[in-house]
């Protein structure tokens, strides 16, 4: 047991399993009191059970830590408020909020039902707001706080079949950028992590099947389940990236030492940690007044658009067979 988070109170949403569970256990082992929130639903968000949250609370207590369970959904305003209130009621404060709860409903855009869009946006993007808003009120008053939200390379880079998830996960990045600036002066930092790990969410039979279809059709970003590791990749020591491998970076960002880190996005997978660049204007063209379309037709191909590659170019036309 370390003591880098001694006296701190942390809420980790969706911490009944996977990446969230790893964060809850590690933060508890560093002395934080934990609210283990988990609805106990399926990967699609259906159903509910107290078992996953209760089990992690037991694990923490067995190793000598303090924890309480909460079973509310982050997808509603009331749920978010109750989750934060659980921390206040049991431990009198909230210092650290880890927005981790998430679901998947992968579908190509032209087949995506409004319900599939809505369910994913509600849990991920609304979920982050529903918890961060009430937490930020408390953190602002106490002049200290840490908010760490899970984003994804599916938003930061892009991934086919995930228009809902990609939109939600980049939305979380935008929310992080602004909250960092709204709350920084009160001693609160707000950052995001794009984790990659083998969990029930990323390695489900449905996800693997969908990725195999996308890979077979030659679609970009078909995901890790369909890709062989590069030849020169270091050997995976335990058969892949464990969900517990994300926790040390999250815990680090929650400590005092990380006070200068605010409004940034990191990548965490197994033994690889990275800092993502923020978008910048990398090529510019200028003139006085309005560009004309003719000017752009002449200029763009040898300035801003020069060398841009279509990441999913149309297939060349089938050669016509001789009769």
């Amino acid at each position, binding site marked *: 047991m370390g003591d880098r988070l001694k006296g701190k109170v942390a809420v980790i949403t969706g911490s009944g399993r996977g990446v969230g569970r790893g964060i809850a256990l590690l933060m508890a082992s560093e002395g934080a009191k934990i609210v283990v929130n988990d609805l106990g639903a399926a990967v699609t968000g259906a159903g509910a059970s107290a078992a996953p949250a209760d089990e992690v609370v037991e694990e923490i207590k067995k190793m000598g830590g303090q924890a309480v369970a909460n079973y509310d959904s982050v997808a509603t305003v009331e749920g978010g408020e109750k989750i934060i209130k659980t921390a206040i009621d049991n431990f009198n404060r909230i210092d650290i909020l880890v927005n981790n709860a998430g679901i998947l409903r992968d579908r190509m855009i*032209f087949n995506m039902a409004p319900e599939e869009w809505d369910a994913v946006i509600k849990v991920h993007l609304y979920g982050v707001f529903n918890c961060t808003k009430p937490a930020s009120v408390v953190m602002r008053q106490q002049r200290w706080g840490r908010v760490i939200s899970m984003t994804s390379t599916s938003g930061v880079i892009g991934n086919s*079949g995930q228009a809902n998830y990609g939109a939600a996960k980049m*939305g979380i990045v935008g*929310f992080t950028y602004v*909250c960092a*600036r709204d709350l*920084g002066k009160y001693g609160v930092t707000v950052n995001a992590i794009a984790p990659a790990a083998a969990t029930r969410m990323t390695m489900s039979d449905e996800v693997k099947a969908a990725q195999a279809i996308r890979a077979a059709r030659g679609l970009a970003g078909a995901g890790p389940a369909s890709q062989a590791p590069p030849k020169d990749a270091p050997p995976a020591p335990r058969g892949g990236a464990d969900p517990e491998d994300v926790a040390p970076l999250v815990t680090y960002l929650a400590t005092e030492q990380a006070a200068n880190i605010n409004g940034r996005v990191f990548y965490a997978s197994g*033994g690889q940690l990275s800092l993502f660049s923020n978008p910048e204007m990398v090529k510019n063209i200028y003139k006085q007044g309005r560009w004309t*379309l003719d000017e752009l037709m002449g200029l763009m191909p040898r300035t*801003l658009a020069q060398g841009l590659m279509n990441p999913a170019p149309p297939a060349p036309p089938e050669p016509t067979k001789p009769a």
Partner: protein
Amino acid sequence: MVDKLKGKVAIVTGSGGGIGRGEALALAAEGAKVVVNDVGAALTGVGGSAKPADTVVDEIKKAGGEAVANYDSVSTPEGGENIIKTALNAFGKLDILVNNAGILRDKMVFNMTNEEWDAVIKVHLYGHFYTSRPACVLFRQQKSGRIINTSSISGLGNRGQSNYAAAKEGIVGFTRTLALEMGKYGVTVNAIRPNAGTRMTISDDMRQAAERTGRTGMIQYMESLKPEDVAPMVVWLASDAASNVNGRNFFVQTGRIALFSEPVQEKVIMKRGGFTVDELFAMLPTTLTQGLINPAPKEVEAPKS
């Protein structure tokens, strides 16, 4: 009138005023038939009126172009479907979708109500989905199409706009995914981050605040950035000349256009197996997080006397 978009059919959401109006006029001037969509609401999304859309349709017709008005809201599935249907009913097809409709409800995150959050996410982010989904069904069948989405530089971090930034970066993530999914069907999907003086960016509140504080220079500067100046880049992205540009986002304002970089892992540390917390305490300050500056450092409070 020239003809770089002759025979094309375009929809511009929120084109009763501001940037959207400029886009509708410019697309029509290049020969596109245009659906001018606008609910005619106030900046906060309240109310509705046919007038803004009708006025722009008249402008296009007077200039010799073709246009029809639509007054549906992008923030419902039915609204999105109706907007696409308007193009099919009036012109028989759809080639170009410009998602532009938007509202503002600025508030610091700790004061933001659920309604303020929801209204902005619904119009911007859901609004992009509700029109793009039926458009992509058509684009996939016809093996061509253009979607130009509207993000914002505010998405990269402007105080008091956590709802707007969440929506606007969400649109960037949506754009990246759609580009990957639709590219093989000959469709490109890109986003602009425009900056112009409109009723959205120069509100009456801002004007009054500037006059109170004597800082009217900013208002004058914003007024010099004409909303019509965004349109040429949108027309270019909609043209065949831009077929290699897919999944990217651009800053666009009067006389200046910039390509944004895509996020890359700019600093990386690796080891076999996961790092421990101890290792991160030792390593991060000299590697990944070295030199990072808090954009809003903690305010030093004056000692109480």
